[in-house]
């Protein structure tokens, strides 16, 4: 191989080529194909013979909005995002503030322990929690019985299954954003607090007037990645409830998976994927608008 490049552009493209080719072929092309697919009736027959595929315009999309199960899935996913997301961020911020306090001891030990659930496999964790939630011999109901709480059928009750999944998700995820918040807190200059202290500001007003505003960019970022991640709820209901009971934990991605890879209604599933994309995009745009206004 001749390793002296004629000019820098050739060299740059030599280094870019493998990654860009991989992204183009296995990311960009599939995204565009999915878009085209969402306007067709691609189904199990098309898997064997591509000739039977027909364009159907927006029919898949109109069918989505006429499907009650889609609205159930959207509602459940929004529930998970809107309740679980803020709970998750609040838990992260709370623990980050506590660990950042001068009064806290064994900081690095606590930090590591809080982070452990983050690195564990979601599937294994969901398996473990399925047993923790067992109505008769689960550890959680046993602990609650000390406080006189009667056994609860966490995953069998349509009203409690999603809260149970949210609790598990918060438990698993809060350590991740906690570390990002800790980094954000450490970036706030100490002299701001010293000055406030000299002026006689209370701890609360220091928190309200210094910590929170200085932490806003971090918070916006954390909220954004949490929301995008939570919209993709899939493995928890897949392992713990299979979307039940009574579809109470059916999520958009689980619906897409079942339609696409169980029933092979791939055109319809592609349309579901794009509706999810659109919802995430709208949230991201709102978030970016907020961020721009603050700068």
């Amino acid at each position, binding site marked *: 191989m001749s390793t002296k490049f004629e000019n820098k552009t050739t060299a740059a493209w030599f280094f870019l080529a493998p990654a860009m080719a991989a992204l183009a072929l*296995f*990311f960009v092309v599939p995204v565009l194909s*999915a878009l085209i697919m969402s306007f067709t009736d691609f189904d199990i027959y098309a898997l064997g013979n591509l000739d039977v595929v027909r364009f159907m315009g927006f029919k898949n999309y109109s069918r989505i909005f006429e499907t009650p199960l889609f609205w159930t899935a959207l509602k459940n996913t929004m529930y998970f995002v809107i309740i679980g997301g803020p709970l998750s961020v609040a838990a992260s911020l709370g623990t980050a503030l506590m660990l950042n306090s001068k*009064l806290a001891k064994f900081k690095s030990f606590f930090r590591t322990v809080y982070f452990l659930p983050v690195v564990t496999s979601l599937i*294994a964790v969901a398996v473990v929690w399925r047993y923790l939630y067992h109505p008769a011999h689960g550890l959680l109901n046993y602990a609650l019985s000390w406080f006189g709480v009667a056994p609860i059928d966490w995953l069998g009750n349509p009203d409690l299954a999603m809260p149970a999944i949210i609790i598990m998700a918060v438990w698993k995820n809060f350590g991740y954003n906690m570390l990002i918040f800790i980094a954000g807190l450490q970036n706030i200059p100490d002299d701001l607090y010293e000055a406030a202290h000299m002026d006689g500001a209370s701890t609360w007003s220091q928190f309200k007037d210094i910590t929170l505003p200085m932490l806003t960019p971090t918070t916006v970022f954390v909220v954004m990645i949490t929301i995008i991640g939570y919209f993709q709820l899939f493995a928890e209901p897949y392992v713990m409830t299979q979307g039940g009971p009574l579809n109470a934990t059916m999520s958009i991605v689980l619906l897409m998976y079942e339609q696409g890879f169980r029933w092979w209604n791939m055109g319809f599933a592609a349309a579901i994927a794009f509706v999810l994309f659109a919802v995430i995009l709208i949230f991201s745009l709102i978030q970016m608008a907020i961020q721009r206004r603050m700068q």
Partner: protein
Amino acid sequence: MKRSLPKIFLNGLLGIIALTSLIPVLWMVSASFMQTGEASSFPPPFFPSHPTFEHYRALTERLNMGRYFLNSFIIASAVTLVSLLFNSMAGFAFAKYKFPGRDKLFRVMLSGMVVPAQVTMLPLFLMLKTFGVVNTYVGAIIPGLASIFGIFLIRQFAGSIPDSLIEAARMDGASEFKVYRTVILPLCRPILYTLALFTFMGTWNDFMWPLIIMTDETNYTLPVGLANLMGEHVLDLELMMAGSVVTILPVLLLFLFFQRHYVRGLMLGGVKE
């Protein structure tokens, strides 16, 4: 004296949260050593009365868990090695070469991060089916060949390498590839460790793609195999806990050993100025 009450309260709370984080994990390990049926008795025991390895033996001898482990290991290692090479090359190019359209290309690439991976999965599956790589390691590895986040991380890091070092190497007659190999790669070592850890753990824990692409049981990765096991052995609690331990333990150890690298990457990627 005045501060001791808040101090006790704060540290007590931190301790309770730590217990909450640890108990499910500790119980999983403990229950995996219990006799069959013991964990389902009432009140639920926290420690095994007669510890046994029988569930681990059953997993490896009867239930193919050794094979799943090997599959996970091969796929995660391959994705890590290849993506590290591709991402570092691209990150270097974005950081250190001026070429027409560079900033635009970078921006367009970054905007791809808002596309959820699920959008690509249906056509990618069909594409790989025509290539004949469904149900193979190659099929499992392909979506991980390059990552936008990885390229971004390396570009940020490589950007801080002084141009003078690169120029000096060129003056000595080094080819561009030699500059990459002998100047950029060694100086990027910290971020490469971090990215390797992220990628390996992320691929190891990935569920949806291997679930889709691996159609034969012998090719399952640990998470897919575990979810499948759950369908057949849901009543065998102790066995399922042993399976969870096998799935979690490798990445947990990896994290405990290389924590420092992991945390640094998180802060680099997470905190944008």
